[in-house]
């Protein structure tokens, strides 16, 4: 070990400075014990970043360990930049989802753009070429002008970044609910394709190998971004705007091409994105994975401005940078590739045998930690978990007791309201701003149950989707966790894909609050149950805690990113009705559960009742039956029943594809045991609306599997009406009305003024 003394000009370590760095007293004592002395300012900065929730998962690690992570086709599980699964033919898919919630709350355009940039880098550092982007977004009510500002900024940020790099944005989901009013959720997922042989891991190896910084130069932006992401949002958050990084998609595109060329070249042994906590976390994590020491000289790091201190260089989160471990003697080859793409590469350190993590400024040591303890010594917490009694009370409130509004006598009024609820309405306003067809692989683009991408050179395709329902998880985290996985699986299965594996993004509140940690634990447990039953292991993901603002915590919102595989591309199935005269079938139970539904929330403003039951084993059987039917070639369309229930699903089948609308004639009058409104708007799980020219085949497949299935109506291409007969009444809506409700809602909102207000100007919003 070297002698480490304070650097001239750096602040003196005081309890106040320690607190400012977000370390608890216990964590600081741990640091002092590890070093055997008082840390330097640089060391304090390094530890505050690496031990931040964002980098260390200190509250979530223990719980995450309970998730299933293996399957024969999983090539890389959690712990790397991205998960990787084999899809046969020597090909593999790398994928990962990540949050950029806090930056987006303060600076939506850059926050979302850099979220896209970060997740792209996570995928191409595995050696995969990105082929698709997805995103899951949550905002408050569009009635609020700041929410419209956030929404439009986030959408533009996602679009401008992905469009420039040339990766199609193909799917996702957007939910609007007051629970996300001042803490929006911005989760971005990237999917990449690679040859299995090109898989590379971020593991430093080979004593004497040089460590190189490549890509953009390091500036003063984004310092302490990781710590910022690890605290509640508050009135003070706006003042932390400088912690937010600024994205440059042009440089990203160059870095993408240069990195893939580097990986192919064989001149490097490891590569990692300098993401959260920048150089600090990338170098420490690569060293820890390789079980080697590293030394880095901050004076060698190419910077944007002079006079940057080691502290600033280590903690900068300037975008579009990579850390590379090159093969000794191949430094010039690495530089040549970067120069071709007009980027810089500089040797900034080396892999050493001595088990230390050492940072120097020239010859002076400014930080030094023993072995990999910098990463492994991070504390792990298992705080108290206790369910909120207020939520128990909500769950135990029976939905049936909610009195019908007078207008509900006309069911088409209710359907109109639901279709024009921003959460359900068409999101074309957003996805028209995303290039969804570049790279010419998009078979099914945005707006379907899941996106489908062909795999060139094979007869295969993959289906991808992100999904989550925070309201369900809020009311019952265990059940909500199951549903998140099951719904994502159903969505990819509706295209004809077998669900393969997931990545997850877990957006929760402050884990030190017992009711929040309860939600986290239970939701992860529910997800684990569903993943095991469905055979879809978790290959990685991201945890975003402290999603709280002065108005309270967001709904606990686990978002699932699912990848499915289609073996025969000719079987790709779409969600909307296709052929006149086809029979319409409901695969699954009628159920009629209204708890936690969009109906109760939108029509009655109530978030009550138990969310619909979810039995993962049953979900698996339903999905298998659906896939068998699709594989037999007898399914014209398949659409998952979700938000808004059967009536909304049927309406979407009629009008979601504006170039191919259909009417439908439905008879549900035999379900006399269920109230009309529950038949129409209940959100019972495990249900698919299928259209088929061979209903007997579908019924036989379902009967063999032991899944309920009924023929409920006919597709009428020439009709301009959706009609539904019910036990005690009927619904009759013109396609023109459905179309207007579904397609015009969000454009109408977004033609209203959008103004930028800061947190300081927000009036307190009543907690939901």
């Amino acid at each position, binding site marked *: 070990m070297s002698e480490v003394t304070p650097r001239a000009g750096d602040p003196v370590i005081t309890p106040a400075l320690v607190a400012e760095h977000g370390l608890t007293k216990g964590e600081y004592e741990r640091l002092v014990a590890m070093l055997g002395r008082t840390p330097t300012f640089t060391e304090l900065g390094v530890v505050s970043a690496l031990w931040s929730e964002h980098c260390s998962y200190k509250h979530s690690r223990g719980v995450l360990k309970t998730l299933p992570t293996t399957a024969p086709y999983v090539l890389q599980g959690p712990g790397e930049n991205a998960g990787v699964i084999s899809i046969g033919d020597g090909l593999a898919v790398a994928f990962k989802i990540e949050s950029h919630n806090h930056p987006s709350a303060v600076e939506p355009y850059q926050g979302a753009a850099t979220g896209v940039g970060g997740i792209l880098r996570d995928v191409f550092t595995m050696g995969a070429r990105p082929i698709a982007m997805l995103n899951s977004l949550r905002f408050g009510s569009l009635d609020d002008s700041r929410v419209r500002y956030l929404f439009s900024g986030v959408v533009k940020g996602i*679009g401008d970044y992905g469009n*420039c790099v040339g990766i199609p944005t193909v799917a996702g989901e957007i939910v609007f609910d007051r629970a996300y009013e001042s803490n929006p959720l911005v989760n971005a997922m990237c999917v990449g394709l690679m040859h299995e042989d090109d898989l590379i891991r971020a593991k430093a190896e080979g004593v004497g190998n040089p460590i190189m910084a490549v890509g953009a130069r390091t500036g003063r932006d984004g310092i302490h971004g990781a710590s910022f992401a690890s605290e509640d949002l508050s009135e003070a958050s706006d003042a932390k705007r400088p912690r937010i990084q600024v994205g440059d998609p*042009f440089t990203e595109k160059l870095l993408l091409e240069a990195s893939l060329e580097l990986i192919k070249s064989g001149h490097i042994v490891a590569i990692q994105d300098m993401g959260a906590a920048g150089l600090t976390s990338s170098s420490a994590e690569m060293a820890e994975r390789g079980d080697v020491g590293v030394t880095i000289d901050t004076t060698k790091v190419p910077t944007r401005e002079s006079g940057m201190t080691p502290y600033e260089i280590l903690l900068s989160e300037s975008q579009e940078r990579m850390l590379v471990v090159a093969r000794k003697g191949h430094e010039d080859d690495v530089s040549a590739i970067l120069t071709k793409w007009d980027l810089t590469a500089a040797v900034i350190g080396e892999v050493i045998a001595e088990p230390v993590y050492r940072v120097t400024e020239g010859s002076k040591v400014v930080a030094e930690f023993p072995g990999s303890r910098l990463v492994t010594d991070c504390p792990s917490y298992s705080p108290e978990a206790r369910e909120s009694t207020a939520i128990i009370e909500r769950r135990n409130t029976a939905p049936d007791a909610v009195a019908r509004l007078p207008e509900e006598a006309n069911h088409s009024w209710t359907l109109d309201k639901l279709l024009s609820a921003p959460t359900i309405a068409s999101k074309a306003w957003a*996805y*028209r*701003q995303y290039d969804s067809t570049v790279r*010419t692989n998009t078979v099914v683009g945005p707006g379907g149950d899941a996106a489908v991408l062909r795999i060139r050179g094979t007869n295969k395709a993959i289906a991808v989707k992100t999904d989550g329902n925070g309201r369900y998880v809020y009311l019952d985290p265990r059940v909500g966790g199951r549903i998140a996985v099951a719904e994502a699986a159903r969505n990819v299965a509706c295209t004809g894909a077998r669900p393969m594996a997931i990545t997850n993004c877990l957006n929760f509140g402050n884990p030190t609050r017992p009711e929040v940690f309860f939600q986290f634990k239970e939701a992860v447990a529910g997800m684990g149950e569903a993943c095991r039953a469905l055979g879809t292991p978790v290959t990685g993901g991201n945890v975003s805690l402290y999603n709280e603002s002065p108005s309270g915590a967001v709904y606990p919102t686990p978002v699932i990113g699912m990848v499915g595989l289609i073996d025969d591309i000719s079987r790709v199935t779409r969600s909307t009705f296709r052929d006149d005269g086809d029979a319409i079938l409901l695969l699954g139970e009628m159920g009629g559960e209204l708890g936690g539904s969009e109906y109760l929330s939108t029509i009655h403003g109530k978030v009550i009742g138990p969310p619909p039951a979810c039995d993962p084993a049953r979900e698996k059987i339903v999905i298998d039956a659906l896939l068998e039917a699709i594989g037999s070639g007898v399914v014209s369309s398949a659409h998952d029943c979700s938000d808004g229930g059967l009536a909304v699903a049927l309406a979407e089948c009629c009008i979601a594809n504006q170039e191919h609308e259909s009417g439908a004639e439905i008879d549900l009058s035999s379900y006399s045991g269920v109230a009309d409104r529950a038949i129409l708007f209940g959100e019972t799980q495990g249900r698919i609306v299928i259209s088929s020219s061979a209903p007997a085949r579908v019924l036989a497949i379902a009967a063999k599997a032991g899944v309920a299935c009924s023929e409920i109506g006919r597709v009428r291409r020439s009709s301009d009406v959706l009609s539904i007969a019910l036990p005690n009444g009927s619904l009759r809506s013109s396609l023109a009305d459905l179309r207007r409700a579904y397609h015009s809602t969000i454009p109408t909102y977004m033609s209203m003024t959008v103004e930028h207000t800061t947190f300081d100007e927000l009036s307190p919003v009543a907690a939901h």
Partner: protein
Amino acid sequence: MKFGIVTFPASNCDYDAYHAVTEILGEEAVYLWHKDHDLQGSDVIILPGGFSYGDYLRVGAIARFSPIMQEVTAHAKAGGPVLGICNGFQIACEAGLLPGALMRNSHLQFVSADVRIRVENADTLFTNRYDRGEVLKIPVAHGDGRFVAPDEVLDRIEGEGQVIFRYADADGNISADANPNGSERNIAGIINDAGNVLGMMPHPERACSLLLGSNDGVRLLESILSRVAA
């Protein structure tokens, strides 16, 4: 026939053009690096879509000064075929190979959608396999696709049959609703007066497979093949 596809640093449709030429058309294609001065004996040059040099300044404004563009311009002046798609159309205008300019979309948003375009002139190097008045389904994806030019230029290129494609509805009607970016006179694609340089905002290379929604772009490539090979 050999197609040369220019790769600027942030071209991102070069790959799609390459596949359309090699897989759909079955012809030879090479990538031409922007720093080079060599067209590698290409018969036809494609300036593909993307963001050339980031396009933070003005779309295509830097690309026109790149080394390869000197050769592309010389090729065009000598009568060699050049197809500029999206960003390639913008670059061709900046380089003076085509009249007019592409400005920010009138609604100020990026637009990604399948649009319909009507073939206005089917007697060109690039459109001889279409019928005049035929409506094609082809995707657009751009933020700066609003074609503008002085009125006298618009009158002239219309009069000379240089307007090749216009945004239309599915029935071929030219209307404001069918115009995705506010282009003057719904212009989606134009040709130079010599008839060897076509610029268009829609992406024919993305409309080469029914699996992906349309194969209306294939005949554009076939048109070039039939005329140049002949």
